[in-house]
């Protein structure tokens, strides 16, 4: 392991979050087993009070995950000077087999936690708390995933050795690299661009369509998920090139560096918010038929769908702005 403050901070955070969630699991089980909204017994009143604690805890864990995700990428980027061959976060994450899985797990946890909070929000607005059991069962289902994410992170950090020679974005995302990311980098430009904008238009369109008609909620979620993947591929294959003004530098992390004026944040912020909001729309849809939620779910979903639509438009606009403003010319004519 490399002894470094940011790593210690991240490990500490994951330890505390896992500890808090494991600590709250028995409470969640208790609620699942004994919840009875119609009872006025002291037990029920106690359970009800605990829901406040659990909501607050989850909000805290979620916020921490968000900051930890940022710090994780940030730190990976910083540490690149410590590994032979690493120029940015890609090289650092490649030092051992757990780097990228840890990152992906953290992103997944982030989106799932966001969806859980949306479900929680909807539930607490209905006066009979109709989703209490489902909500806490979902929470228990989320727990192993968080454990996996934390374990991957521990394995990754504990396995870091400074004398490892790693390969960086130059080799991983170059056109002749094998695998999915290499394919994304090597994809022909024009069709990729068309697919990129078409998917973004679909995602934004689904959001605004839901806002107008309150229909197609699952499409909002589906297209948002799809758009997230396509947007990442798009950043890899051409948006990054325009930012770096270099025809062969495919890297999703270097855009976050100060050398490029932190432009990446303008891309990633709408991307992550849009995806989380879009997924939230889908997450609450199964409960739209519950009597006390018939008006709440569409109202909340409408707000989220609008947010998702705006974010996808914003993302497309930011990406286009970067492409137009770049001095690099990839498409002639």
């Amino acid at each position: 392991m490399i002894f470094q403050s940011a790593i210690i901070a991240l490990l500490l955070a994951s330890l505390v979050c896992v500890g808090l969630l494991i600590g709250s699991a028995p409470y969640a089980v208790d609620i699942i087993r004994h919840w009875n909204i119609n009872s006025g017994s002291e037990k029920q009143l106690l359970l009800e009070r605990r829901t406040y604690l659990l909501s607050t805890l989850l909000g805290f864990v979620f916020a921490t995950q968000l900051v930890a995700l940022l710090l994780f990428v940030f730190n990976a980027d910083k540490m690149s000077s410590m590994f032979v061959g690493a120029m940015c976060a890609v090289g650092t994450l490649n030092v051992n087999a757990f780097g990228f899985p840890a990152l992906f797990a953290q992103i997944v946890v982030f989106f799932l936690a966001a969806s859980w909070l949306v479900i929680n929000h909807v539930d607490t607005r209905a006066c009979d708390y109709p989703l209490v059991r489902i909500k806490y069962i979902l929470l228990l289902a989320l727990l192993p995933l968080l454990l996996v994410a934390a374990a991957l992170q521990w394995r990754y950090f504990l396995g870091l050795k400074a004398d490892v020679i790693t390969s960086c974005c130059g080799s991983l995302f170059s056109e002749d690299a094998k695998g999915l990311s290499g394919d994304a980098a090597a994809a022909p430009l024009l069709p990729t661009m068309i697919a990129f904008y078409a998917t973004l238009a679909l995602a934004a369109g689904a959001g605004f369509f839901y806002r107008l008609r309150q229909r197609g909620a699952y499409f909002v979620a589906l297209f948002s998920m799809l758009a997230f993947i396509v947007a990442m591929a798009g950043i890899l294959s051409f948006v990054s090139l325009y930012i770096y003004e270099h025809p062969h530098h495919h890297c999703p992390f270097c855009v976050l560096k100060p050398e490029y004026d932190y432009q990446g944040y303008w891309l990633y912020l709408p991307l992550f918010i849009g995806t989380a909001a879009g997924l939230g729309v889908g997450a609450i849809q199964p409960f739209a038929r519950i009597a006390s939620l018939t008006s709440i779910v569409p109202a909340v979903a409408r707000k989220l769908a609008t947010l998702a639509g705006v974010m996808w438009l914003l993302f497309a606009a930011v990406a286009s702005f970067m492409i137009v403003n770049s001095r690099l010319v990839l498409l002639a004519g």
Partner: protein
Amino acid sequence: MIELKDIRKAFNQGRDNEFHALNGIDLHLPAQRVTAFRGPSGSGKTTLLSIIGCLSRPTSGRVRLKERDISGLPERFLTDIRRQTFGFVFQQFNLIKGLSALENVMLPAYPLGGDWHELRESAERLLGDLRLSHRRQARVEWLSGGEQQRVAIARALINDPEVIIADEPTANLDSALAMEFMDILEKLSAGGKTIILTSHDPLVVDSAIVHQVVDMRDGRVVRHLAMAEASA
């Protein structure tokens, strides 16, 4: 206005010191009337008052407020209803020390997030109505007992509730101030507010403004008196 059906409240359930504060209360509290609960301490009148005012939930039984069953509502929604419907005046006044009279009056409206200027105006108007304009910036601990109670009344009225609930409102006041309080209550009652109070002060329960008196003992209603002569 408020209907109670077989209300029971138990504390320390399932333990040795389990005790039942209310043992099946059936009651109807009409709108725009003054109801007084009378009984020795420990008779359950304060517990009943807190259930009526949505401060706590009954262990069993039904509470209906304006035709709506609110017995099974979680705290979040009970609080919502309480804010819109009830104003409270407590025996100890329960003002927050260190804050001015005006701030104390404004406190119940904070969670609603209304416009600050409007809120401040209505708080000043209420204090003015209760002859406290000149003391509005004073910290509440510098006020006399009578003034403190008037601040507490203004605070109870800030969200324009339909029902005023007062728990032993005159217990800490001398006779002159108690009379003054009853005058204020009379005005509020005449203004259309429903008033529910507990007291064993004859000055209150025998007062002409009380429409019905409910006698309680051991968590049960022992007598329900309608005061015919008090019709307004």
